[in-house]
């Protein structure tokens, strides 16, 4: 099948992890926490990212240059904690605070191209800005006001992906 004759891939066919995650039965749960709860959790996350210096351009450079342990230490402790927590919730606890069954929608591998290519493109931007999406927002709050430009540009990048999506290999 050549790409010129390939039909336009619509939203159903392009595998979309975000939307899978988003359209789970979640939003209708009457016991679901209010937005303010997520705001508070976000505040905590912003504080941890900032105080842990994970949002520092210098720390990211130090990591990519293999010159310091700080960021590796963060990943090496964050990942086991996250794995243990999520696996415990899925396999043992099985219920959310509101009593819902815990559902983690699987990601679909497909050809894997989107992860390899998209990931590499993001990595290039990560090295330039020194920030992934979370840190972009934390830095904005922390007084690096030019990050609003990087955020706007990141939105344009996401928008452009949406526009070109049906032509990209996934």
């Amino acid at each position: 099948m050549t790409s010129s004759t390939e039909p336009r891939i619509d939203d159903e066919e392009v595998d979309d992890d975000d939307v899978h995650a988003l359209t789970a039965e979640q939003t209708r749960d009457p016991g679901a926490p209010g937005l303010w709860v997520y705001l508070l959790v976000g505040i905590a996350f912003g504080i941890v990212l900032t105080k842990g210096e994970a949002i520092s351009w210098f720390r990211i450079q130090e990591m990519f240059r293999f010159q310091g342990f700080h960021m590796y230490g963060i990943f090496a402790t964050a990942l086991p904690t996250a794995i243990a927590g999520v696996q415990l919730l899925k396999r043992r606890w099985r219920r959310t605070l509101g009593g819902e069954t815990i559902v983690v929608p699987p990601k679909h591998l497909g050809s894997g191209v989107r992860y390899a290519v998209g990931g590499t493109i993001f990595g290039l931007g990560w090295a330039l800005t020194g920030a992934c999406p979370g840190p972009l927002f934390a830095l904005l709050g922390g007084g690096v006001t030019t990050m609003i430009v990087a955020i706007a540009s990141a939105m344009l990048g996401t928008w452009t992906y949406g526009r070109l999506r049906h032509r990209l290999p996934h």
Partner: protein
Amino acid sequence: MRDILLRPWPWYVAGPLIGLFAPLLLWLGNRMFGVSSNLRHLCSAIAPRGIPYLSYDWRREGGWNLAFVAGIVVGGVLAGLVFRNPEPVAVAASTRASLAALGIHQLGGLVPRELFEWSSLATVRGWIVLVGGGFLVGFGTAYAGGCTSGHGISGVANLEVPSFIALAAFFAGGLLGTFVLLPLVLGIGR
């Protein structure tokens, strides 16, 4: 007391705490921790333009996550301005030397001022770092379907093969960016 609030946290404090957010959000409301989706929600809110990828109920799907990201900004204000660490980030001396060789000398704060001040937008290299770098982050995370949080933490925590691939690719791109792209960009106009 105030000194404790100002001091940065070591990796063994920050790392485990960062790792708690994926299970915490899952437990609170079956939510998958991931920040880059917010870029999509914001696009969907502002300019969906009939693009299928952006045409959905962003309030319903992304309301919680937009509240979360608003919290990140507030957290940044608290930890980065109110209780700001007055000392420069204590990166390795070798990193300082590497950056000096690239023409980065201002090591105060969390980011180098010569790249992230408003006036730097008038320079080619400042423009490429902020506008170009931001674009790559937004395009790449959307294409990959997640960022350091969504794939790197959440996806890996759920032991997803795609997320391990994505995390490796993030790092490969970062190395390419650090050793090839950044020296080129910072060399402009020097």
